[in-house]
C-alpha cells in the first residue's frame, strides 16, 4: 500500500468517526433536554394527568383498536377503488383523439372540482346529501358514502400523480415500443405504465398515508370508528388519553407502511440500476 493511500484511509476513518460522534452526541442532547425540560413546564402535571393517564389508556385501548378495524376496512376498500378510478381518469386525460374530447373534458372537470373541495366538506355534502335522496336502508349506510367520498377526493389527486408519472416516461420509450409494432394500448400497458408507477411510488405512499388519516373524517357523518370512539371515551373519562392512544394506533400503521415502501424502492433500484452515487 502506498503512503498516499494509507493517508487517505486514515483521513476517511477519522471523518467517519467524527460524523458518528456528532450524530450520537446531538441525539443524546436533544432527548435529554426533552426529558428534563418538558416536565419543568408549569402545566406539565395537568397535561400528564389528562393526556397520559395509564389507567384510562389501559381501559380504552382495546375498544379503540376494535373501532380502528372499521377504519382499516374503509381503507382496504377505498385504496384499490382509488387506484382504479384514478388510473381511468389519468388515461382519459391523456387521450388525444378528438372523438374522445368529452371523456377528456370530463376528466379535467373531475380532477379540478374534486381536488378543489376540502375533503371534510365533501364528507358532509355526500354523506348527508346522498342518503337524503331517500335510498333504501342498505344504501343509506354512512360508511358507504364516506368511502365513496374518500374515493372521489383521493382519486382526483392520485389521477394527477399518475398523469405526471405517465408524462415523465420519455417519448423515446414510446417510439421504441411502437417501432416494434406494439399498439398504443400495449405500449401504455407494458412500457409506459410500469415505468410510471415505479416513479410515483413515493407520492402514492404519501397519499396512502394521508388517506389512512383522512378515514377518520368519515366519523363526522356517524360511523363509530376510532376518532369517534376516542371522543366517546374522552367524554366518559373526562380525559384526553384516548386521543393519544388513537394517535399511537395510527402511527403503528402509517410508519411501517412508509418504511415498507422505502425498502421496496431501494430494492428495485439495486436490482435494475447501475451503481448508486454516494
Amino acid at each position, binding site marked *: 500500500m502506498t503512503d498516499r493511500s494509507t493517508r487517505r484511509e486514515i483521513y476517511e476513518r477519522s471523518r467517519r468517526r467524527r460524523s458518528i460522534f456528532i450524530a450520537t452526541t446531538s441525539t443524546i442532547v436533544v432527548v435529554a433536554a426533552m426529558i428534563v425540560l418538558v416536565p419543568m413546564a408549569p402545566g406539565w402535571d395537568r397535561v400528564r394527568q389528562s393526556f397520559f393517564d395509564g389507567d384510562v389508556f389501559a381501559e380504552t385501548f382495546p375498544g379503540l383498536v376494535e373501532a380502528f378495524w372499521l377504519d382499516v376496512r374503509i381503507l382496504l376498500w377505498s385504496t384499490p377503488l382509488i387506484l382504479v378510478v384514478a388510473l381511468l381518469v389519468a388515461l382519459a386525460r391523456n387521450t388525444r383523439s378528438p372523438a374522445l374530447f368529452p371523456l377528456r373534458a370530463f376528466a379535467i372537470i373531475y380532477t379540478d372540482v374534486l381536488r378543489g373541495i376540502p375533503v371534510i366538506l365533501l364528507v358532509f355534502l355526500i354523506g348527508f346529501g346522498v342518503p337524503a335522496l331517500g335510498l333504501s336502508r342498505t344504501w343509506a349506510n354512512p360508511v358507504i358514502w364516506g368511502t365513496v367520498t374518500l374515493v372521489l377526493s383521493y382519486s382526483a389527486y392520485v389521477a394527477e400523480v399518475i398523469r405526471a408519472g405517465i408524462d415523465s416516461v420519455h417519448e423515446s420509450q414510446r417510439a421504441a415500443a411502437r417501432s416494434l*409494432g406494439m399498439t398504443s394500448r400495449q405500449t401504455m400497458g407494458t412500457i409506459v405504465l410500469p415505468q410510471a408507477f415505479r416513479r410515483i411510488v413515493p407520492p402514492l405512499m404519501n397519499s396512502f398515508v394521508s388517506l389512512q388519516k383522512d378515514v377518520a373524517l368519515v366519523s363526522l357523518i356517524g360511523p363509530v370508528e376510532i376518532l369517534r370512539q376516542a371522543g366517546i371515551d374522552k367524554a366518559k373519562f373526562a380525559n384526553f388519553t384516548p386521543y393519544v392512544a388513537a394517535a399511537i394506533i395510527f402511527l403503528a400503521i402509517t410508519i411501517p407502511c412508509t418504511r415498507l415502501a422505502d425498502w421496496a424502492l431501494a430494492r428495485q433500484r439495486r*436490482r435494475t440500476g447501475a451503481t448508486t452515487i454516494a
Partner: protein
Amino acid sequence: MSDQPKILLRSVFKAFGDTTVLDGIDLDVAEGDVITLIGASGSGKSTLLRCVNLLEPIDDGEIFLDGVDIAEPGLDPDPIRRRIGMIFQSFNLFPHMSVTDNVAVGPRKVLGVSKSEARRAGLELLTRLGLADRADAYPDQLSGGQQQRVAIARSLAMNPEVMLLDEITSALDPELVGEVLDVIRDLKRNGMTMLFATHEMAFAREISDRVCFLHRGRILEEGPPAQIFESPSEPRTQAFLQRVIDAGRM
C-alpha cells in the same frame, strides 16, 4: 427476389411548423441493399427514417413498402411497423425489463408467441450477438455497446424485413463502436435491407451499396460509395466531406 424495390419514396415532404425538414425526397431501396444517409445534423436523416417507420406522418408524397403505399392516411401503422426494425441513437431499451425480456417483449405482445418460446428465441439471438452472459442483467448495468447490441437483438427478434439505423454509434465511446458495427456487417452478410443514417464515414464507405448525401431535406447527391467519397460532383458534398476530414473523422 423480385424486381420491385423493397422501399420506394416518392417526393416525400415533411415540415415541423414552418421548418421544412424533408423537401421532396425520392429514394429507391432494393431488397438486400444497404443505403447510407450522410449529411450534417439537421439535414433530415433522422426524420426520413422516422417517416419510413411511420413514427412521423409525412405531409405529402408516397412511401411504398413492397409496392404498397404505407403513408396512406388512415392506414393502421402497427402491422407495418412490425415488418420494419428501428435502432435508435440512444438505444431506448426498456429499463424496467431484463435484457432477455427486452428482446422477448415484442414477439410476445405483438406476435403472440408464448413467454417461454419468446425467451428461448431471445436467448438464442443474444448468444449470437455475444450477450448470453448478460441475459439476466438490466439495461442500466450494461455498457453502451452492449445496450446497443441488445437493442439490435430486440429489433431482430421481430424478424424485420427492413432495418432503419439512426446514428446507432453516435452515443458510444470510440472503443465500443466496433462491436456494434460488427453486428451490422453480419446483418449485411445475411442480406438484410438497411437504411442507415450515420457519421461513421469509413464504415459507410465499407458497407454501403449506395450513399445519399442529404442537405436541407433534399438528397443532393447519390451514388456508390467510391464515387461519393472520392469524386463527389456537388460542391456542397465536397464541403461536407472536407469538414468531416478536418474534424479527423475520416
